[in-house]
């Protein structure tokens, strides 16, 4: 990353941190939701963009995290105990699902995650004693930090913003480590990477489980942000939209999910007059994007640079 890019990033971040001071509660809620959604999207980018696997079940992990958090928080457990539990639960489930699915054939993880998402949705909807069924779980308490209540919209926004930055920093560090660099080799040519001694299955599996854990963390924050969860928030279509968000932004680029999440979370609110037409346009725009810019919106910059170099 060049210095100019670093400064640009910092300015954007500062703007994002200041903007809610001038917004009403709903605006702050949306900006907080973006932070929470990003946690799961960053995880998905690790799976899709870096490990080169298709996952169509990120919302299932989002849901597992959210329901774990909601149920335990309602029992009075503290948030900072609940959070690692939600993450670990998703990590474990990710391993359990990913291990057999990745062992057999490469693109079968996509199918397995798709089926898994539908299954999780069915369980959330039908096991009323545990999950509240279609009524969901309401009145989920918000955490407090060093004795300060985070019930207000603004304090909770800053809490989520700091959390997502921390999570992004951990992922950034992870991807720059030797462990992370093996990913690039994996994604570009799995068989060649294997021949140089990279254990494909182990790496991909860990990436998948870590991505799932990120969604679990996001889910725990979502439960406390909305205070209410129900199965519809974690259906297959949510996973599909999140996958499209990551790809539209630019999968395999660290900040791709940020742009993609803005497109699916903030833009529809801003363009509210379009109503259902928004998603219709979005769907067809994805096709156009795949044809002309398969690397996602963030690859536009490279495109210009390459064009300039040719002239």
């Amino acid at each position, binding site marked *: 990353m060049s210095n100019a890019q670093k400064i640009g990033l910092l300015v954007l971040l500062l703007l994002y941190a200041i903007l809610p001071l001038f917004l009403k509660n709903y605006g702050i809620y949306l900006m907080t939701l973006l932070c929470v959604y990003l946690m799961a999207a960053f995880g998905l980018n690790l799976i899709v963009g870096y490990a080169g696997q298709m996952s169509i079940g990120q919302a299932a992990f989002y849901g597992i995290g959210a329901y774990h958090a909601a149920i335990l928080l309602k029992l009075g457990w503290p948030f900072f105990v609940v959070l690692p539990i939600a993450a670990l639960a998703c990590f474990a489930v990710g391993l359990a699902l990913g291990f057999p699915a990745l062992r057999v054939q490469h693109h079968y993880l996509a199918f*397995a995650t798709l089926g898994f998402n539908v*299954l999780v949705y*069915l369980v959330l909807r039908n096991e009323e004693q545990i999950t509240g069924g279609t009524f969901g779980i309401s009145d989920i308490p918000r955490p407090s930090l060093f004795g300060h209540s985070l019930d207000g919209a603004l304090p909770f926004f800053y809490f989520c913003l700091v959390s997502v930055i921390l999570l992004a920093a951990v992922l950034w560090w992870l991807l720059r480590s030797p462990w992370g660099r093996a990913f690039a080799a994996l994604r570009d*040519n799995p068989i060649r990477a294997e021949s140089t001694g990279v254990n494909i299955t182990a790496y991909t599996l860990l990436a998948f489980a870590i991505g799932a854990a990120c969604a679990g963390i996001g889910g725990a924050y979502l439960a406390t942000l909305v205070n209410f969860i129900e199965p519809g928030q974690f259906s297959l279509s949510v996973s599909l939209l999140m*996958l499209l968000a990551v790809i539209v932004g630019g999968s395999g680029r660290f900040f791709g999910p940020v742009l993609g999440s803005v497109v699916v979370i903030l833009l529809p609110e801003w363009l509210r007059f379009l109503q259902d037409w928004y998603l219709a346009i979005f769907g067809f725009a994805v*096709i156009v994007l*795949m*044809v002309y810019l398969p690397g996602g919106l963030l690859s536009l910059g490279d495109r210009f640079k390459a064009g300039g170099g040719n002239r």
Partner: protein
Amino acid sequence: MADFLQLVISGTATGAIYALCALGFTLLWQASGTINFAQGEFVMLPAFMMLFFINSANLPLWLAFLLTCIVAMLLLGYAFKRAIVDPLIRHGVIPLVIATLGLSIGVKQLVKAGVTAQALPFNSPFPDGLIALGELKVSYADVGTLLVAGLIVIGLQLFLNRTVTGRAMQAVAQNTDAARILGINVQRMVLYTFLINAVLAVVAALLVAPIYLVKFDMGESIGLKAFYAAIIGGFNQTRGALLGGVLVGVMENLTGAYVSPSYKEGVALLLFLVVIIFRPEGLLGKSEERKV
């Protein structure tokens, strides 16, 4: 026992509809390597078209069906291939999957925003009532569905196995390069596959619309079932799609009746997951080699 048999028969009828949809799905995969995630919407659109021809243009059902077949072949066959599959297939499977996901969302929301968000009724092409065979009672709709689906499948098999065009299409599916060397017009054969897929979708729409009602999101469920069916039976086998479709339909019915209606989808879903994990080539499929 009569109950059980009845459940199996009506499950087979529903499964036959899934099988038609899954059949198109596997044909596309074999001929062109396209995984079409908009397959459900390919059933939803013809349902709306037929309804439009029947209600707005006052056409009889058979004419509406034929017209819809033509429109579907143009739109879901030819245009789909030229506008989406042809430019993307070079980049591999994933961009095309993403594009069809986009297509699925786009078409669904377009119908929701531009036509209606409500569920519209669709008159069954078959008469009401039951046929009694001793203790066994079977509805005309189930028998009709099985007959239509059966005829279509047999016709398709005859076309694929007995005609020169059909055999050329199979050659393309088995080995594109070899087929090209033998002088087969590969692009044309692939196009035929897309046209057949469109017609299969229209037939599936005709059979499923009276059951599901015509709604913008009716394709979500049937698309998913077709997907399960194709994978369970075997992605690269035409017979697999048929077996998978019927299995999913029957298991759904039996689970709904004997286990719990809210887990109707559950058993088929579990079988789907088990197949992916332990027999990824599907019950009838052959495994594919990895290529560098």
